[in-house]
């Protein structure tokens, strides 16, 4: 390394790296991406300015939304490129080494585990399925018992209003229970079609342009490891799973590099 001026940012670990593919993508700060090889494993890496990526500085940069987005997108861009040509293990954002020799040591140390996981991931990709529900799908009353369909003759306006409110609340509870059950059903169904499944935290609707406008709530945020040749079928199954559920839609994303499955078959 060049006299402490640079550090090494690592994106992904893979068995084989084609430099021609790496030439087509730029890394953090626009830096060229290169291979750091140790035994049968390679890391896709690039050099970053050591001062700009010290622990304190990096931490601070990540609290700046614009900087965080740039780093995350650059990290993801390289991982996505590497994963198009060979099975790849994405690294979590923010692993920086003082030099390439330290990267090689890491590869050597975890070689058995990485090799196992790469074999498991070969020919597979991650598919994301987000299931959204409109607010009215959560509050819809049970059949035959409309919230406003129970006049209370003889009662004062206040009492009737309270009664109606109670019905609305009961209907909302039922709507939520139905929505939670629907999310569990869909996840179970899709898990059965996938090699492995993971659930992410539901996202805030504000992070999604469409859901933000329609005030939808995310019922399910799942990732599914699917054989590459079955991606289309899986996406169709995800859409079919929400068909006929009023006010519920599925947003299918991917194929993704196997971020959610980088911890191997035993991960949760």
């Amino acid at each position, binding site marked *: 390394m060049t006299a402490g001026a640079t550090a090494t940012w*690592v994106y992904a670990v893979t068995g084989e790296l084609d430099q021609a593919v790496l030439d087509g993508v730029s890394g953090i700060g626009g830096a060229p991406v290169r291979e750091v090889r140790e035994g049968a494993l390679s890391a896709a890496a690039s050099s970053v300015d050591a001062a700009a990526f010290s622990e304190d500085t*990096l931490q601070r940069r*990540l*609290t700046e939304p614009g900087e*965080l*987005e740039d780093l*995350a997108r650059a*990290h993801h*861009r390289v991982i*996505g*490129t590497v*994963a*198009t040509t060979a099975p790849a293990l*994405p*690294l*979590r*954002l*923010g*692993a*920086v*080494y*003082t030099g390439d020799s*330290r990267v090689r040591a*890491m590869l050597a140390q975890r070689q058995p585990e990485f090799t196992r996981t790469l074999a498991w991931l070969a020919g597979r*990709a991650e598919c*994301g399925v987000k299931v959204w529900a409109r607010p009215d799908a959560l509050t819809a009353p049970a059949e035959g018992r409309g919230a406003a369909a129970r006049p209370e003759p003889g*009662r004062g306006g206040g*009492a009737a209003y*309270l009664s109606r*409110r109670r019905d609305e*609340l*009961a209907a909302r*509870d039922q709507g*939520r229970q139905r929505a*939670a059950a629907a*999310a569990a059903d869909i996840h179970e169904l899709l898990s059965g079609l996938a090699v492995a499944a993971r*659930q*992410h*935290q*539901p*996202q*805030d609707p*504000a*992070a999604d342009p469409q859901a933000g406008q329609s005030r939808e*709530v*995310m*019922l*399910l*945020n799942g990732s599914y490891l699917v054989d590459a040749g079955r*991606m289309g079928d899986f*996406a169709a199954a995800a859409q079919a799973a929400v068909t006929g559920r009023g006010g519920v839609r599925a*947003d*299918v*994303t*991917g*194929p*993704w590099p196997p*971020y959610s499955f*980088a*911890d191997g078959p035993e991960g949760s």
Partner: protein
Amino acid sequence: MTQPWNAASGSMTRTARRPEPASLADILERVLDKGIVVAGDIRVDLLDIELLTIRLRLIIASVDRAREMGIDWWEHDPALSSAARDLAEENRQLRDRVGELESGAPPDDGQRERPAVPATADRPRS
């Protein structure tokens, strides 16, 4: 719908993981929370990242965790929980108003029945 495989090429090998207009939330939840953790010489503190992510309002709550704990996770939805707060306040005001109505209501109406308003109104959810 923005599924890449609905794009011109149906082949996974060609559409796979090419740079796609993935949402920032989808990317962040993966690069910050998934992927292998390695012992870098410099590593971002994961706890801070978690707090950061929450601060960015990308996460509301975990369905599984909430179910385990018996919590209604929709309460964490800002829109719904503020509606619930409004409702509690509305119920309180209604109790007061109904109380006034009953005490001052004309004798030919409203006196046939004295609904147990405070008791029932205290049950915002069944």
